[in-house]
C-alpha cells in the first residue's frame, strides 16, 4: 500500500529547527523560567510558582490592554479588508497603469514602522503638520496627544494607510488568477455586477483573503512601534496596547516575573488564533481541491 506521507522529509528542516532553537525556543524557555520566579537583580532568582500568572489573571491592567488590543484589531480588519477588496476591484488589470498602480500601492509597505510613526506624528501636529494644521483651520478641535478619540482615530488612519495596500495587492493577485471564461459565462447569463462579485470573484479570492486577514490580524495584535512613536501609549493609557504595556512592565519597571507571565499568556492567545486561521485556510484549500 502506498504511504500517504513521507515523514522522513521532516529531517530536511533540521537546520531551520536549529536556527529557530537559538532565535526563539531558547528565549521562550528563559521566559518560562522567569515566569515562575522573582528577582531583585544580580541574576538571583526566587521560586514563586504560579503566583505571577494568578496576579496577571486578576489584573485589570492586562485585561484593559487586551480589550484595547482586540478592539484595535477588530476595527482595522473591518476597515482594511473591505477597503482592500474595493481598491483591488478598481485597479487597472493590465498595461502601464497596472504596473504603476502596483508599485505605488507597494510604497507604504516598504517604509519602516518607526518611520511611519514619525511621519504621522509630524503630519498630525497642529503647529507644523499638514493634517493637524488643516483640521485646526477647519475649526476641528483635533489634538492626538491630549484627546483619546483623536489618538485612536490617528492610529487607525495611520494603520489603514500603511497596510491596506497589502490586502489590496493580495486581493488583486486573487482576482488576476480568475480565468476570463468565468466572466464571459457571467456575461452570457446577464449576471449583475454584484452577482459577479458574490459568486465568482469573492469565492476565488477566499484563499488569499484568509491569508490577508491572518497577516493583518497577527500584525495588528502585536503592534508596538507605530503607537509607541505616535502616542507613547497615551493620552493616559488610551492607546496602551498589549505589547506597549508588556515593554513598560518588563523594561520600564523591570518586573521580569509578571512580564514573563503576561507575555506567555499573550503568546498562547496568538498561537490559538493563528492555529484557528491556519486550520480554516487548509480546510478551505482542500475544499477547493488545490
Amino acid at each position, binding site marked *: 500500500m502506498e*504511504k*500517504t*506521507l*513521507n*515523514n*522522513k522529509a*521532516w529531517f530536511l528542516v533540521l537546520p531551520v529547527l536549529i536556527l529557530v532553537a537559538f532565535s526563539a525556543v*531558547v528565549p521562550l*524557555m*528563559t521566559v*518560562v*523560567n*522567569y515566569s*515562575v*520566579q522573582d*528577582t531583585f537583580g544580580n*541574576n538571583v*532568582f526566587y*521560586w514563586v510558582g*504560579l503566583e505571577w*500568572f*494568578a496576579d496577571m*489573571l*486578576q489584573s485589570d491592567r492586562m485585561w484593559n490592554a487586551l480589550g484595547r488590543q482586540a478592539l484595535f484589531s477588530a476595527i482595522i480588519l473591518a476597515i482594511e479588508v473591505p477597503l482592500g477588496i474595493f481598491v483591488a476591484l478598481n485597479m487597472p488589470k493590465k498595461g502601464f497603469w497596472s504596473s504603476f498602480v502596483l508599485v505605488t500601492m507597494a510604497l507604504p509597505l516598504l517604509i519602516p514602522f518607526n518611520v511611519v510613526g514619525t511621519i504621522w506624528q509630524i503630519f498630525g501636529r497642529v503647529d507644523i503638520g499638514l493634517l493637524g494644521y488643516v483640521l485646526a483651520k477647519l475649526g476641528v478641535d483635533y489634538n492626538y496627544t491630549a484627546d483619546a478619540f483623536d489618538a485612536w482615530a490617528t492610529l487607525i488612519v495611520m494603520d489603514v494607510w500603511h497596510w491596506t495596500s497589502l490586502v489590496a495587492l493580495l486581493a488583486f493577485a486573487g482576482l488576476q488568477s480568475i480565468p476570463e471564461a468565468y466572466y464571459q459565462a457571467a456575461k452570457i447569463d446577464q449576471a449583475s455586477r454584484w452577482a459577479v462579485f458574490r459568486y465568482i470573484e469573492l469565492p476565488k479570492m477566499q484563499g488569499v483573503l484568509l491569508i490577508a486577514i491572518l497577516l493583518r490580524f497577527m500584525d495588528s495584535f502585536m503592534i508596538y512601534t507605530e503607537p509607541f512613536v505616535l502616542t507613547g501609549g497615551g493620552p493616559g493609557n488610551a492607546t496602551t496596547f498589549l505589547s506597549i504595556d508588556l515593554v513598560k512592565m518588563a523594561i520600564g519597571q523591570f518586573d521580569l516575573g509578571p512580564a514573563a507571565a503576561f507575555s506567555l*499568556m499573550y503568546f*498562547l492567545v496568538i*498561537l*490559538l488564533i493563528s*492555529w484557528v486561521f491556519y*486550520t480554516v485556510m*487548509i*480546510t478551505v484549500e*482542500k475544499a477547493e481541491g488545490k
Partner: protein
Amino acid sequence: MAWMAWTLPTALFFGAIACLIVTFTVLAIKFPETPRVGILRIETTRGDRLFITLLGSAFLNLIWLAVGISPQWGALILCFVYACAVFRWV
C-alpha cells in the same frame, strides 16, 4: 546556562514536552497514518491532536488558576481527561 534561570520544575516541564515530541516523531516515522476527520470536522494527524491537547491544556490550566477554586494539580487531572477525549474523538 545560569542566565536562563533554570529550575527543576521548568526543566521537567520542557523535558516532558521534548519527550512527547520525540515519541510522536518516531511514531510518525514508524507508523505513518492517514489523517482522520473527527468531531471538529477538520483533518487531524496524531501530531495535530498532540498540539490541540497541549494548547488546550495550557488554557485549561490558566482558567483553573483564574477561577482559583482548587489546587492546581486538579487542572492536570482535567487536562488528562481532555487529552483522552482529543485523541479519541478529534
